[in-house]
């Protein structure tokens, strides 16, 4: 795989797009357990979510069918590298390390990070005040990095549900996550015991990830995203899930 990700070695033979168009199928890696971005309707129904719908729209724009492969986060990059799928649609945040190893589309989600605490918590008011506090984070998310950089003592958990459970049980002080995730959770459960203690100043961006050297495919997806944005499709998908436009 080291050779595959070597730009120069594959530059002359970028078949990333033709492989997809020839097969007529875009294979997408996603978790299927990350609400509201990629999840199953009603828990056991069809796969849906913000990321899922956007990549479906992109595939339609490219004139190919879409096929989802659901896997856990552990396997998602390994699967991309092993050629198990063409693209990851799973709220992948771009970081310098990742950019060095993978190709990324233009961003399709912009959101702020929030610190979620118990309603009666007054000691955490900003990211600076996280220092020395304990937070629960999913290991693999960029929010983990943010919490760590803020000086929090991070406890790694499997996902959002466990993070929230630990905050509610008072076993950690806070969790840092996507604003969108928290809003969805509140809407769904009507949870009243939690509040947002602070927002990040900057928005973070997420993109689709491709194996290095997939310039043609990345370009094609970028083109599709541009058209979808222009046609208002991205906005309407975003409003369906979040009531506002997070796609730009």
């Amino acid at each position, binding site marked *: 795989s080291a050779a595959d990700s070597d730009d120069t070695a594959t530059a002359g033979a970028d078949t990333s797009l033709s492989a997809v168009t020839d097969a007529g199928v875009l294979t997408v890696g996603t978790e299927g357990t990350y609400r509201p971005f990629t999840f199953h309707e009603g828990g056991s129904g069809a796969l849906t979510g913000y990321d899922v719908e956007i990549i479906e729209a992109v595939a339609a724009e490219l004139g190919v069918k879409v096929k989802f492969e659901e896997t856990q986060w552990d*396997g998602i990059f390994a699967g991309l590298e092993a050629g*198990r799928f063409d693209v990851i649609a799973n709220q992948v945040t771009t970081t310098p390390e990742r950019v060095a190893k993978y190709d990324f589309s233009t961003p399709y989600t912009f959101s702020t990070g929030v610190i979620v605490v118990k309603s009666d918590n007054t000691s955490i008011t900003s990211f600076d005040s996280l220092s020395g506090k304990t937070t629960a984070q999913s290991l693999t998310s960029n929010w983990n990095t943010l919490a760590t950089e803020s000086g929090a003592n991070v406890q790694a958990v499997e996902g959002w549900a466990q993070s929230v459970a630990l905050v509610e049980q008072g076993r950690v002080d806070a969790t840092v996550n996507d604003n969108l995730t928290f809003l969805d959770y509140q809407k769904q459960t009507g949870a009243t015991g939690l509040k947002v203690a602070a927002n990040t100043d900057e928005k973070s961006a997420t993109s689709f990830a491709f194996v290095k050297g997939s310039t043609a495919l990345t370009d094609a997806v970028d083109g599709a995203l541009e058209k979808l944005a222009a046609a208002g499709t991205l906005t309407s998908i975003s409003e369906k899930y979040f009531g506002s436009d997070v796609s730009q």
Partner: protein
Amino acid sequence: MNQSAWDLFWTSLGPIVQGAILGTIPLALASFAIGITLAIGLALMRLSRRGWVSSIARVYISIVRGTPLLVQLFVIFYGLPSLGIVIDPWPSAVVAFSLNVGGYAAEVIRAAILSVPKGQWEAAYMIGMSHRRALTRIILPQAARVSVPPLSNTFISLVKDTSLASVILVTELFREAQQVAAFSTEFMLLYLEAALVYWVICLALSSVQSILEKRLDRYVAH
């Protein structure tokens, strides 16, 4: 449990049981059957007088038992493609679990073969049997009875271990529960529900084990 929890329990029971029937159970059965065949071969290699044959089997068994199953699944599904070997999720899972069962069951079968009294080999040779025929007609049938309890343990572990197959894209019982949990955030309830289904499967296996033991007992020395 309140009403909505009950509702969630009942609506999710369908998909979870379906995951068991379409994923967990066939995966476990296929892997067990192949794994046992492999295990018999490995056990015979371990018992071989040729040192290097025995060593190969020993190293294999040691690696399979000494490393996490999750890593083995990873290597087969995500690692082999870099050597040009691409296997689909289901076959990958069957391969990984079979190799694993092979490693664990080999030692069980080896011990069972060794537990058959030496006099049985001698009587078989005495009536003119070759080593191979003595093994298949005289020794293995007797070893079978001794192996049933430990092999059912291997099988029960296998059933639970198949939950790892979801990392290589196979949908089974536990994956279904995780999906509902991700949707509802009621992970505690859903995991308990999955546990209940696993338990029912294991109880069923235990009864099969008792029946098998009784049947084999009927004609084996006491």
